[in-house]
């Protein structure tokens, strides 16, 4: 067994490296990912070691990146596309929604689209406009796409490899403000399937659901709640589409209370879908309505206001209080 302490960023880098070693058809494409190693250095050193035909600095055109990835996938390659920041995926949105997502169905399964679209997502880094978005619902709403969000180095290392090996297109969301968070990673033992949620802290009073950057926030809230004698169960959803809610149902049947946390605006966000399903499935166990904590229905604000926009420990605890107060 070999265990290293890695940041999420470094774990992604090593995971990409291993995926490229395992499969010569894996091609990385994106803006500034070669010589520079990406603006977050996730692909650092890969072009040097694998060459510029496997780690491709593309022209500055996201529709071009995704559109040519479709063609490469048709030709048997496994493109891994980096979108530099969440807010810059939209020039590629047409290709992702009308082509990437639909080609398998259109071709009655004759053509697979094993494309991974890596997107650093979420806020909290003090950036200017378009660098802090949480666009997951747009993709989760599109049939044919799968969407995962990692929260820790282990899932980063293994998840990126699992995503690349997977036959369907996957929007792979990376919690940019957590890139520098560290944890030990066992690089021999795969921790389990990609499309599975996971209980990351056991508890009895309220079930708190999160994914990506909000998992840490939820865990901090659980820590704080414990000091007040409240026991929160925290589940890292890990996969946003498909959702894996069986562990959630199991948990909510015990706690009777559920709070969903995400950075994306609450209205028509993942929390809405989850609340509906939990209500449909666990109605008789619920002591309180499923509550959502998320971004407001405003554009992501200028950075001086982002702390007030982003869900934090206090807002999670506030929702927990409200849930308990029902």
């Amino acid at each position, binding site marked *: 067994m070999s265990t290293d302490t890695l940041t999420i960023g470094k774990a992604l880098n090593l995971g990409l490296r291993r995926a490229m070693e395992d499969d010569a058809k894996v091609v990385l494409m994106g*803006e*500034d990912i*070669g*010589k*520079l*190693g990406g*603006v977050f250095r996730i692909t650092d050193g890969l072009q040097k070691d694998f060459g510029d035909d496997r780690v491709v*600095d*593309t*022209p*500055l*055109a996201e*529709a*071009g990146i995704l559109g040519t990835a479709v063609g490469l996938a048709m030709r048997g390659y496994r493109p891994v596309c980096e979108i530099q920041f969440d*807010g*810059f995926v*939209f*020039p590629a949105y047409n290709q992702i929604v009308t082509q990437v997502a639909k080609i398998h169905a259109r071709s009655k399964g004759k053509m697979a689209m094993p494309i991974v679209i890596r997107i650093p997502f979420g806020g909290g880094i*003090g*950036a*200017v*406009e*378009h660098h802090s978005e949480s666009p997951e619902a747009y993709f989760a709403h599109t049939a044919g796409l799968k969407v995962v969000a990692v929260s820790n180095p282990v899932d980063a290392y293994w998840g990126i490899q699992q995503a690349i090996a997977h036959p369907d297109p996957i929007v792979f969301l990376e919690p940019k403000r957590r890139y520098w968070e560290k944890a030990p990673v066992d690089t021999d033992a795969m921790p389990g399937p990609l499309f599975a949620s996971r209980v990351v802290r056991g508890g009895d009073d309220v079930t708190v659901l999160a994914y990506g950057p909000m998992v840490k926030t939820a865990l901090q809230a659980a820590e704080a709640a414990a000091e007040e004698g409240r026991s929160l169960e925290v589940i890292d959803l890990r996969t946003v589409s498909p959702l894996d809610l069986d562990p959630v149902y199991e948990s909510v049947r015990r706690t009777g209370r559920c709070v969903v946390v995400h950075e994306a605006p609450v*209205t028509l966000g993942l929390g809405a879908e989850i609340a509906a399903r939990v209500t449909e499935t666990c109605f008789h166990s619920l002591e309180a309505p499923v509550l959502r904590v998320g971004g*407001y*229905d*405003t*554009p992501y*604000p*200028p*950075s*001086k*206001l*982002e702390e*007030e*926009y982003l869900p934090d420990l*206090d*807002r999670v605890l*506030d929702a927990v209080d409200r849930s308990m107060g029902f």
Partner: protein
Amino acid sequence: MTALRETTEVVDPVPGADAPHLPQQPDLIQLLTPEGERVEHPDYSVDLSEDELRDLYRDLALVRRWDVEATALQRQGELGIWASLLGQEAAQVGAGRALRDGDMAFPTYREHGVAWTRGVDPLHVMGLFRGVDNGGWDPVATGFNLYTIVIGAQCLHATGYAMGVQRDGAESAVLAFLGDGATSQGEVNEAMIFAASFAAPVVFFCQNNQYAISVPLERQSRVPLYQRAAGFGFPGVRVDGNDVLAVLAVTRAALQAAREGQGPTFIEAFTYRMGAHTTSDDPTRYRLASELEEWKLRDPIARLKAYLSRSGLADQAFFDSVDADGDELAARIRSGTLELADPPGTSMFDHVYAEQTPELAAQRAEFEAYHASFEGGVER
């Protein structure tokens, strides 16, 4: 890859140069050599008074001073990020000073020098990079649109705005700014198609600073960028972007042609990004220091200074006074930036719509109530 590099270097005659307002001149248009020697060009000239020449120098020096101060403020944690214009002062000031009242400019995120020429308060630009808002200036009053960060998007807006100018029968022109990297975006190409099809009074002003973050021009284009225009059906021209006189002359001519109904022009201002892409960037990872040294010899400010001194248009007292003005400006920018107040949290709910929705109004009220619940000011 070598072949690609070679193709990029080819400079063919400008296709589409038979347009009435453009010369049959393929090469870099220059009125001031890097050594500060005034040269004539068969098709472009500027007739500037001595005061106007000195004012141009003042513009260049002051925007550079602003830029230096902003970079320092970012380093000291007072700005989230800064996109430096170092090296591109002449391209921006030359283009900006070619605009007239009633014209409209559509900048990217780096056009602080153009903002200066439009009378935008530098503090409004600083506010954006500090994160208090998305740019506090009035785009209508200044004729200077808000910064657009999504690469290339503003080229379509500029074109549409120009189509509006055309419908109004107005005698104005529109100047769309873009980078070399931006020329790869579909939207930029769509803008050029619309502009050509409708003969819109828009000028595409591309600062080819040789890089899109780390990616060199050769990854974006196998032909000199100004040659792209021919394929869209309008003239393209390459100007020495570090020569403020040439930039002014070329941009004035193109804007005037647009006003007179001759349609769009593409201007490639050949320049160099002397600093990092932004304060978050580390250019040592992708380019050689020697490249910068070479470009320092073509510095846009040094050459105008050399010209003004040599021709006796300015003396040391003048340059000293500009330096003093620069220091005063920098001090004003520094203290003004530090005084920029954080906006109230509720402001994020305002202006989302022209007509506020009941839902959002309710959310705003909840937000206020929530923050008020931290009595004793635990929260702010």
